[in-house]
């Protein structure tokens, strides 16, 4: 059991190095070899390919990180394409569900299931399954449909995909409100606006 945990830890570290661009070719080969036969890793790579195909439609991408300076370039010379972006983002989509368990990440979030991953499912839910949510609060219909709950009990950390129904809509409302407040409070900072605009609404 301990060996299994150590192997899992090494796999995560190696994938992390791979995504960080710190892995050598040998390490990449080792990661892929260790991943062989692992359905969860296969699922991760399948998602990787899906996102890759989507992103590559926007341009060829290749991550380059090196010490040598680039040829002189004027920022105002026009639109300069970011070769690194697609590759990094692709790598991140793998990494986010792979190596997140290094600190306060619940184990069920750190471990990617063989079935379509939770976060992917959640994103789909945001796109397709959500009803329009009023920022001013939940609808009367939602309130009437609320179930009787127990008070004060502890709860385990859960995958976002397991949050459904009225609770899902309520959380989305509050998350959007939080994101909107952050944007208003940010005095023009980029990231809060990006988070809010990227948060999908129901169609």
């Amino acid at each position, binding site marked *: 059991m301990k060996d299994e945990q150590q192997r899992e830890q090494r796999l995560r570290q190696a994938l992390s190095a791979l995504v960080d661009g710190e892995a050598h070719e040998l390490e990449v080969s080792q990661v892929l070899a260790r991943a062989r036969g692992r359905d969860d890793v296969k699922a991760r790579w399948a998602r990787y390919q899906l996102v890759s195909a989507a992103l590559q439609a926007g341009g060829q991408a290749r991550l*380059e990180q090196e010490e040598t300076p680039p040829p002189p*370039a004027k920022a105002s010379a026009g639109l300069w394409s970011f*070769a690194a972006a697609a590759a990094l983002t692709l790598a991140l989509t793998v990494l*986010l569900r792979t190596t*997140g368990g290094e*600190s306060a990440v619940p184990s069920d979030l750190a471990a990617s299931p063989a079935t379509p991953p939770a976060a992917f499912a959640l994103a789909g839910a945001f796109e397709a399954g959500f009803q329009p949510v009023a920022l001013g609060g939940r609808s009367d219909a939602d309130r009437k449909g609320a179930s009787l709950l127990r008070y004060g009990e502890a709860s385990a950390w859960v995958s*976002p995909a397991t949050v459904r129904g009225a609770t899902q809509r309520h959380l989305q*409302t509050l998350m959007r409100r939080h*994101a909107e407040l952050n944007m208003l409070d940010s005095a023009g900072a980029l990231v809060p606006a990006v988070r809010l605009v990227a948060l*999908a609404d129901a169609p």
Partner: protein
Amino acid sequence: MRRRAPLALRLCLGGLIMLSGGATGAEATAASGRAWLEAMAAALRANAYEGVLSYARDDAVTELRLVHGHQGSAIYERLSRLDGAPKEMLRRGDELFLLGQEGEALPPAAVPRVQHPVTNFGDVPETYQVQLGTPVRLGGRRAQHIFVDPQDATRFAYQLWLDEETALPLRMTMNYHQGAPVEVVQFRALAVGEEPPEAAFALAGQPVHQHPVAPAQAALAHGSEGVALEALSWRIAWVPPGFQLLAEVADQPVMLRLGDGLATVTVFIDAEVEDEPLAVQHGPTAAVVRHLRHCDGRPHQVTVIGEVPVGSAERIAQSLHCADPPS
């Protein structure tokens, strides 16, 4: 373009001057790192630029287009989502519009009474350590890598890659403490220089939301081991280091805003309990639902949402307790 400076040279010279003045290498590095971040904040405001960026969290990637310019001295900005249903944020000076967002506007009481710059890398709190990384090449540009690390695992860390010529952020990530990223914002293409035409910021159709930008005010309270609330009959016994109370809204649902200048947490306290207790981490955003009884025995639902590890959100929720109503 309004501003162009040889930032790398200038900031390196600043570090050398600090070293000659007796500062240690680490201090000079930190000072230089903070100077880079200040330059980034200024560059984001002062430059005119247009770009396409990717935003990644969990397994989802979203593409957005950003146009940033000026009309007179006012900042004009349009941020458009390119994937899925159209959605935009349009900033025209002190006016903010959200286009394509369903639902009602925020209730008036929820519009911030206090505007602290959050996610404010121009003034990184002392509870974070700023370090210069190695210059790298990113997307064909020379970029300065900068680490912004909290002193504990109750908050997320940040990494930024700033363009050496303009100090604009080419890539920004939020990471677990000494760990992997939970969120990435990265430009895929960026053009800096020409002011966009006024038509780029035209308002087409009726916006769903419109908010005036509130004037800045001072923070309400400080605290690292808890915050005292002025208007609400609740107390929070624990917040992450450096967090302070930013705002409290007494209308239902009661709302508290907490933050440290970079990360923020919103605590919603609802007298109506409807959701099961849970704790989730959705990318950089944690959400925790707990049920608490007030001193009079009435149950309340507490929902903590913020860009902190879910364990921190849970600890904030658990530390919330009732207090006698303020007289």
